[in-house]
């Protein structure tokens, strides 16, 4: 990443002045970054975190992980093209809440975060009982206007994290690699068999 892009990314929609030392340290951290694609929607900070989140949500095992099918770039494109302007705004605001909480917890900027640290913060919000989960999801389904002020920060942060999670699942399970190499791919079945052993098919059908 070059300096110009980095500066552009930082000022994009963030609404605060960035001190020069922050920029310098950020450029250093970019050197270690393996994701070299230019983001079209995510700020540099968001891009760094989304890469970590994708790897947390869909880690590689004996089958490919989210990073193997370029999910961070997919999430970036979907945010830009598919999200409504109002949702885009909430995404940025939510990512800022998450970054602030990261700073409180680890006393450093999220741009310097390691996956382990992002996971520690993320798991606190996602390791929930079924009852807690349904309360959180129900709150997510109402519109911004109806959210009481004291719950606004949580609401926006979950909007952001759930957008990353939803686009990750969509991008992963509808990707060509997973669709043809992992799932059972049969574009023109030709026959219908209503009731057969799972063992004859293996993994789920590619839809």
């Amino acid at each position, binding site marked *: 990443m070059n300096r110009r892009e980095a500066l552009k990314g930082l000022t994009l929609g963030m609404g605060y002045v960035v001190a020069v030392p922050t920029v310098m340290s950020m450029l250093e951290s970019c050197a270690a970054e393996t994701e070299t694609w230019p983001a079209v929607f995510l700020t540099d900070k968001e891009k760094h975190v989304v890469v970590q989140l994708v790897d947390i949500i869909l880690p590689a095992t004996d089958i490919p992980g989210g990073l193997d099918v370029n999910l961070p770039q997919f999430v970036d494109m979907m945010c830009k093209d598919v999200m409504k302007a109002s949702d885009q705004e909430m995404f940025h605001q939510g990512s800022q809440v998450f970054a602030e909480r990261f700073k409180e917890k680890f006393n450093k900027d999220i741009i310097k975060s390691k996956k382990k640290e992002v996971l520690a913060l993320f798991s606190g919000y*996602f390791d929930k009982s079924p009852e807690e989960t349904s309360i959180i999801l129900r709150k997510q389904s109402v519109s911004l206007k109806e959210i009481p002020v004291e719950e606004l920060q949580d609401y926006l942060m979950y909007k952001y994290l759930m957008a990353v999670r939803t686009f990750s699942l969509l991008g992963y399970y509808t990707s060509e690699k997973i669709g043809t190499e992992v799932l059972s791919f049969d574009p023109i079945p030709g026959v219908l068999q209503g009731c057969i052993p799972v*063992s004859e098919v293996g993994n789920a059908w590619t*839809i």
Partner: protein
Amino acid sequence: MSKRTNEEASSSFDAIVIGTGISGGWAAKELCENGLNTLVLERGRMVEHVIDYPTMHMENWDFEHRNKLTADEAKRQEKQSRTGYTTAKEFKHWFVDDIEHPYTETKRFDWMRGYHVGGRSITWGRHSYRLSEMDFEANKKDGHGVDWPIRYKDLAPWYDKVEEYIGVCGKNMGLEQLPDGKLTEPMEFNCVETDFVNRVAENMDGRVITNARIAHITGDKIHEGRSKCQFRDRCMRGCPFGGYFSSNASTLPAATRSGNMTLRPNSIAYEIVYDEKTKEASGVKVIDTLTKEKLFFQAKVIFCCASAIASAAILMQSKSDRFPNGLGNDSGELGHNIMDHTLGVGASAVVNEHEDKYYKGRKPAGFYIPRFQNLDKKSEKKAFKRGYGYQGSASRTNWRSAIAELSYGKELKDALVKPGKWRIGMGAFGECLPYHENKMTLNYDKLDAWGLPIVDFDVEFKENEKAMLKDMKEQAVAMLEAAGYDEVTGYFKEHDSFPGIGIHEMGTARMGRDPKTSVLNGFNQIHTVKNVYVTDGACMTSSGCQNPSLTYMALTARAANHAARTYFKNKKV
């Protein structure tokens, strides 16, 4: 007869058909095969079978945004997206641009439609159920609306003809409320569906659940230019195999083969011209959307098959001294009595069984539960008249079931590549009564891009529909519980179920016995302008609860043969 100049020859036909959807295709085929030189008008673009199905072979990953609309695309189809499925990227080109094709709503009406050759015959649900004697008698018996001028026996041979031609698979059950048909072998149930059918019959007094009857080819009968269903379940994109019936795959090619069809896309019919001297219609005025020219085509017979709403709009725009309120509108019923099926109610459940069982092939439909209320004394309901049916299916869930969760990590990822839990669900289609005050009007304050008035809707479901909706939910829950399933959940999207969403709009130019209370007679002719036939959803006197396309096709075939006979009889004289 003197030899016509080329120009005249191209502007005069034996018959004109307005519309190329499920009704227009049948009118075209029957008129052409009977030897009438027929002009077929379509307001939208050409769609050639197979060649013009742009998404038919695409996989998920071939769509840049994985079948989602971009925010900019979504803005152009806000109304068309009200169904939640019609404007997915794979289908969106079959539905209109709402900005280019506006309509207004005194009351909300979800008018889902596409402007292209084949119309909604490309995207229809393909479920094909006959109306029964019970349906044809219903209005007369309970006094809602007017009496149908025909009975089941009048339509039965035409149902036979249509089913044999289009190919409908399913199973004859010998039911009074759902007559048997000319069906080919049904698509087999999966393990859960089979259990469900048996358990409901056992635990609910023999209640019948049968295989969906859908217009897909199974079995070995030859259908020219088409082949068997390949179980891709990508029907709405257009089928390269012609596995299901559409005008494009079937009736329009048949009309072409006759040598008698002139198909004219990009042609908006906006007025049927009435001739005071002959007391008949003399032809159709058309706007060519490519050249913006206004043209006039003459014909001896005119078929309105533009859809319930569009056909009524054309008739309403066809004003003359004799018919100041629209062609054939002596009764004042034109544009009134709009019906649709109520939708958005049903139930689903989790099935913790058959975890070692799966299926091969993507079945395009599951089961059908024929009407069981108000059939006889025993099933009579106090709360509402008429009845409803359900469509449903069982399948194993996939990764989408995890969207509404907070799960993440290795366990989630690896679990979602395996077949998920079985789920079973069903949704009801309820009969809507004909109410005079449920109407459309022409809005001359707001003209479209061609200077034509746009349609305004003033339609609502009333007490009978609402009472029925309650029962539809309760019975769906009761059946799933009777089958012993878990997490049974009924749903009724009360604030999200508006007329139109069933995409079965009908009734705007109803058939009837009395010209004072109806627009069309028993052969779909305008009572007072006999050479104009209306055979799409506009003609329906009552709605039944069955998916109506099969009935439109049977009525159209019957009317077209009546028109052809009349045409040749008049010619001899």
